[in-house]
């Protein structure tokens, strides 16, 4: 870790957003055009900002910035290679969850600040989704940290040098994937802001720079969450032959592609169904996953 880490995080964010743009086109079945994302961003930026009249203007315009900062903060705690470990806190795994926790207020602020009926409803729907996904997400981090005996992401990577955690704890992975998909507000968990639902929902009033920042933030969020999935479950940068950074990039891209591909092929569930399922199935199973993680730690990792 050097003093240049913050700048390197920005470089990773830019590269990651570009790659996710390409992946989106591949998954959608369009012929990939490398500059399409940049061109779309430039077109968005040429529009003026919009501000709904008589609304909470400052909430409305703070939301995209908060979303972007949350995404960048989450990305900063992902270690990419032994030489570039991101911001290497000894509590990095919780810090990642803490950064992701600020996605929720950002989306609520966007919906409430816009003050349009559909946007406000979108904000409330997102709160309901947060009640569903936040607990499994946080508990699974514990389940993975217990065998490593540390919350430092680099330690979690190193404990997987023999067997990746996905093989040891398949239950934890199965609970993590939907929660991680939900936190990036990708389909099928894009109820609050999908174009097909509520006509854009919480983000329907954004134009210009605001809209560009939100698109950028969502892609960075996907990179951060896929990177953390690779770190927690797929052994991070470890792998034969290839250099570590390349392994990490490949795993991250594979997870991001999986998220985008699976998400487009699943039906959207109603919010109340998601909440009920999360509290009846996901949370009890997450408790079981932690108990199981403790058992295998006692047996194999001491």
């Amino acid at each position, binding site marked *: 870790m050097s003093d240049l880490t913050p700048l390197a995080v920005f470089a990773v964010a830019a590269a990651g957003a570009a790659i996710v743009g390409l992946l989106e086109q591949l998954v959608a079945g369009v012929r990939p055009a490398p500059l399409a994302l940049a061109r779309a961003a430039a077109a968005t930026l040429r529009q003026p*900002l919009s501000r*709904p009249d008589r609304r909470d203007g400052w909430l409305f315009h703070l939301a995209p910035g908060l979303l972007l*900062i949350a995404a*960048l903060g989450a990305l900063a705690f992902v270690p990419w290679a032994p030489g570039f470990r991101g*911001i290497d806190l000894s509590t990095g795994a919780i810090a990642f969850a803490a950064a992701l926790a600020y996605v929720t207020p950002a989306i609520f602020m966007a919906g409430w600040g816009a003050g349009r009926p559909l946007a*406000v409803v979108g904000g409330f729907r997102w709160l309901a989704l947060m009640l569903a996904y936040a607990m499994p997400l946080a508990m699974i981090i514990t389940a993975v940290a217990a065998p490593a005996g540390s919350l430092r992401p680099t330690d979690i990577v190193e404990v997987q040098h023999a067997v990746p955690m996905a093989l040891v704890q398949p239950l934890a992975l199965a609970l993590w994937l939907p929660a991680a998909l939900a936190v990036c507000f990708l389909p099928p968990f894009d109820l609050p802001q999908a174009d097909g639902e509520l006509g854009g929902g919480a983000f329907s009033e954004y134009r210009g720079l605001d809209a560009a920042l939100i698109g950028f933030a969502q892609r960075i969020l996907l990179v951060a969450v896929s990177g953390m999935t690779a770190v927690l479950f797929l052994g991070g940068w470890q792998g034969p032959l290839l250099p570590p950074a390349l392994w990490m990039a490949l795993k991250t891209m594979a997870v991001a592609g999986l998220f985008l591909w699976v998400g487009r092929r699943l039906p959207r569930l109603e919010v109340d169904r998601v*909440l009920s399922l999360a509290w009846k199935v996901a949370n*009890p199973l997450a408790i079981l996953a932690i108990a199981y993680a403790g058992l295998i730690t006692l047996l194999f990792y001491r």
Partner: protein
Amino acid sequence: MTAIELFFVLLAIAAGVILVAYAVAIATRGVVRVHRGEQPAWPRFHVHFYVFAILFIAFDMEMAYMYPWAVVFRDLGVFAYAEIGFFLTVLGLGILYAWRERALEGW
């Protein structure tokens, strides 16, 4: 620099970049007011999932104790496993109670 300082540097740079971007955007493109004269849709709202919210606030706190446990568990062994077993059982009872009271049914 320590890791926390680097984190603050990252926050400062990100906030600075966003502020500059907004300043440039407002200076060059301006702001358009839309939906002139309409009242915002901010009624008193019946949020149907409030029981989940109350459960969430209480249950969320569990994490504060799970994280320190996860870090020292490998060193303490069976004793810590018994403790966390008690902890998780108690919280599981909370979920079971809510389930039994039909508070987890959606709405």
